[in-house]
């Protein structure tokens, strides 16, 4: 752990199989460090809960019974394994072979169910019968409410007031699932404030309540727990790819990055291969590209912040990527060069959303469309023609259809107005 900076020096900028010797994406230890990133920056009242959680997770994760229970729920309830789909038409169009890991087919429509199922089981193991969660667009909130319903637990979801209005239907969906949704009115009234509020709630209830964090973020052990719970995505995908590719791994493995859980879970399956790993952030929320190291929500990672350390709002078309930070392990992977982080802007993303729909009959989540957009853009450039690319399609786009419709209508109207003015 202490050799971090020398490791970073040796490997930075050179992705490839040289890293297979490293124990990347392993156990971050008691301090929860990924190189210099991670850690556990929480007020003392939360320390006991964090320590208990770490201990319980260590026990559970070493326990075959726990794995069996989790695997069985994910299989018979969550719809795992999800398939890998060969995208014939898109591949032909762009000249690289595209495979999609289909988390859109998982129950509740995204990879989030993998994480919440594991955490709900863990909570039950700890004797806690209540889950709280933060949510941005609502995907993680819906997933948490789902797991709580299935396991008969209480559930409260914190959601920025702005988001509750933007995603009114997801609020109702959570309520249908029996959850109590709290509209957070502090700060920017969006995801980061929902996290703050969930942490605040957790401070006063941590003895009976488990905080079900939605991505590879937060204080140790969350980034580790969530990555391990999402590892199933990468593990499945690697086996499936090897079957499809005659034992080979894909040349590129690409996933979108909000907090970074679907990317972390995917990458975890490929760290010991020679695949190039790419995380794609929203251009307006690119914590790796435009962020600087800082501490938020219990972790040291890259953040969008001003010079005085005030956290900035992320702004992107996809609510699920509207987070001003990134999981600390991604900051680490970027710093050592084992993964690279790129971004895609809103226009490209809408185009990719439409292209994947039209060419493959798969409407991606706007979040996932970031990964697709980057691959489309870089095919024949960064990604050589003829390469094989695995994209994790983290979720389905049904939730985004009305937003995209409005965007397309608006841009159509703008164009028409433009034309009228010209003519």
């Amino acid at each position, binding site marked *: *752990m202490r050799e971090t*900076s020398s490791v970073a020096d040796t490997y930075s900028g050179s992705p490839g199989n040289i890293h297979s010797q490293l124990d990347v994406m392993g156990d971050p*230890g*008691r*301090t929860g*460090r990924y190189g*210099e*990133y991670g*850690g*556990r*920056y*929480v*007020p*003392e*009242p939360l*320390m*006991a*809960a964090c320590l208990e959680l770490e201990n319980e997770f260590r026990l559970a994760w070493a326990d075959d019974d726990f794995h069996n229970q989790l695997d069985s729920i994910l299989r018979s309830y969550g719809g795992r394994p999800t398939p890998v789909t060969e995208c014939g038409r898109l591949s032909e169009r762009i000249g690289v072979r595209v495979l999609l890991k289909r988390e859109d087919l998982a129950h509740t429509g995204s990879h989030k169910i993998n994480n919440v199922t594991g955490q709900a089981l863990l909570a039950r193991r700890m004797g806690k019968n209540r889950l709280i969660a933060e949510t941005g667009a609502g995907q993680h909130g819906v997933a948490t409410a789902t797991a709580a319903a299935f396991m008969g637990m209480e559930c409260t979801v914190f959601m920025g007031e702005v988001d509750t209005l933007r995603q009114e239907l997801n609020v109702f969906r959570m309520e249908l699932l029996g959850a109590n949704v709290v509209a957070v009115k*502090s*700060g920017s009234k969006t995801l*980061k*404030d929902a996290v*703050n509020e969930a*942490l*605040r709630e957790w*401070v*006063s*209830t*941590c*003895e009976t309540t488990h905080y079900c964090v939605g991505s590879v973020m937060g204080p140790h052990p969350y980034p580790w727990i969530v990555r391990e719970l999402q590892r199933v995505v990468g593990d499945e995908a690697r086996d499936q790819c090897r079957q499809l590719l005659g034992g080979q791994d894909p040349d590129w493995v690409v996933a979108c990055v909000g907090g970074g859980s679907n990317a972390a879970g995917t990458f975890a399956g490929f760290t010991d291969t020679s695949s190039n790993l790419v995380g794609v952030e929203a251009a307006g929320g690119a914590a790796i590209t435009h962020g*600087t*190291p*800082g*501490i*938020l*929500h*219990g972790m*040291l990672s890259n*953040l969008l*912040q001003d*010079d*005085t*350390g*005030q*956290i900035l709002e992320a702004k992107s078309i996809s609510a699920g990527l509207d987070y001003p930070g990134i999981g600390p392990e991604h900051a680490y992977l970027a710093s050592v060069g084992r993964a690279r982080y790129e971004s895609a802007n809103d226009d490209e993303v809408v185009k990719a959303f439409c292209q994947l729909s039209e060419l493959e009959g798969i409407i991606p989540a706007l979040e996932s469309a970031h990964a697709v957009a980057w691959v489309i853009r870089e095919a024949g450039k960064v990604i050589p023609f003829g390469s094989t690319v695995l994209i994790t399609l983290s979720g389905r786009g049904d939730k985004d259809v009305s937003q995209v419709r409005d965007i397309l209508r608006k841009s159509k109207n703008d164009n028409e107005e433009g034309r009228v003015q010209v003519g």
Partner: protein
Amino acid sequence: MDTGTTTPDLLSSVAGSGTGEGRLGAIQSKLLSARDSGRKSLCCYLMGGMSPDWQDVARAIENGGADIVEIGLPFSDPMIDGPVIQHASKLSLDSGNSPMSVIDSIPCMDMSIPVAVMTYYNIIYKAGLYRMAGRIASAGIAGSIIADLPVEESDSWVTTANDAGIENIMLVAPTTSPDRTKIICDVSQGFVYCVGTMGVTGERDELPNSAKEVAAKVKAATDKPTLVGIGVSTPSQAASVCAIADGVILGSAIVRRITEGEGARGIENFVRLLRRSID
């Protein structure tokens, strides 16, 4: 990346560091001498920059009889604060203040009681630990309270702060284990901040049982001054806690009054009431 990341790997490595020993700082000496003379101590909090007259209010707190004034440095995401202090933080930032501008205005306030700043670690980390410690120290500020810096992560800051002569005050919570309490008490300087209730800052009608319990736990673990904050809102609650603790910290009760437009005079009166209740 600066030294903020050179944290101890294990809690145990902190235990023996004994940063709490050595020459006494302004805060700790003041509180110890109060205790030695049988007086309870009063620490009052306000958010720097939260109102145009905040500096007057800080002086009023001194005049009202507080022993320490705690000044919040505004942060966009104050995770352990309830709505009252969150709002104050936002007011401060919205009126163009920054953590540094608050620090820089302390000297001209000419306080004669010790000042501690209270903030979140990102404010320090982003500025750079060394730079921030220097700035705090040159402003004549005696102590720091970093809400989200638990003992495991505190080594770098404590070292840097100590070098600059700043006392770093650490928190003990109702859920903190006995072993851990011992370590935190060892590391904490100035005083030990007992978190009176499991919850965020904010006023409460009743004093939670945990307020006295945590004070007792800390007093059993250390000789350092033991002040209880979070969950103490009224003069009578303050008095009640001081049956065990060496003193109390009031934040939201003061900040709410300022937010509601109470001026320096009103705050001074309130502080006087508090003072009287614990004397």
